[in-house]
């Protein structure tokens, strides 16, 4: 299932979660990690990824550091303290949403079902 509209709404959560697990990452690395984790089922478009990273940085959730790699510049992103807090809240928000979605799609499912 590779639906861009479904991914769009959770892109920020995906980025924050990956950075929580990986300390610091750069754009290409994020796209590859998502591809790897989903066995190529989900592909993050670069046109959506970079603006999302810049937005999270402007909101103070991500910090950046620039490193020189083979005569070029690489921008690494990592979570700030506010970003760390945001991961927890975004994750529970998303989990709650998926749980409710499950209830709608499969009404027989028992309340309190956790994904």
């Amino acid at each position: 299932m590779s639906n861009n509209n479904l991914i769009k709404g959770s892109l920020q959560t995906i980025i924050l979660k990956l950075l929580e697990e990986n300390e610091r990452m750069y754009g290409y690395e994020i796209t590859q990690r998502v591809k790897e984790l989903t066995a190529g089922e989900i592909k993050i478009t670069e046109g959506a990824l970079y603006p999302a990273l810049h937005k999270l940085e402007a909101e103070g959730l991500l910090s950046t550091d620039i490193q020189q790699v083979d005569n070029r510049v690489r921008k690494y992103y990592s979570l700030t303290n506010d970003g760390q807090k945001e991961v927890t809240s975004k994750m529970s928000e998303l989990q709650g949403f998926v749980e409710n979605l499950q209830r709608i799609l499969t009404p027989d499912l028992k309340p309190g079902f956790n994904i």
Partner: protein
Amino acid sequence: MRKLSSQELEWIHTRLKSLYIRYTEVYEEIFDHYCTTLENTPAIDSPVIIAKLNETFAWSVVKNMDKELETNVSKQVLVAQLDYLKFWNHGIKGLLIGFAGFAVLNISIFIIPPSELIIIFLLSIICTAAGIFFMKRDALSFSLTHKSVSVSSLTVIKKVGILNTLMMWIWVMPTVLTRGDIQSNKLFAIGMALATVLSIIYSISLIVVASNLPKKSHVQ
């Protein structure tokens, strides 16, 4: 992971230059993306991979990235300015500066005549503009060919431009049009004194934010 050939690097630069990317930050990030992608694929596949990347980073995508970055950096600069202006968060030194600012405001309103306030205002404009242009030269390009510039520097310079134009219209223009007569109006004088002090405080916060911005890292 392999090393890219000079021809591959040339292909990437040619493509990116054809997109007229406005900001260095966007150029560098896309350039790194192209390079890393190619480094992780066999050299024989290069033309196909580059063609795919060209589709990914199409004109509209890149223009959107430029625009989004500009909006986000403008927001960041404003937040940094507001943080700086919260003098109560800077300890005793901040409080002293805050009180000094208040004193300057009162002196401006009650002691300095409007005709001299204009000189102070113009001097503050010139000093701020000169200071920021000197610190943020990487936002300017006088080259006839397109060259990417730093988004943060350009944002700061734009803010100076907006402030000065605004002040010029609300103060200098009425003074010039009435040949100075309006300065005898007490309300106008108080308003202008307030505007001058606020513009000076705003300029100081901009200079501080500009001096804390990261230096230009690389220009293609």
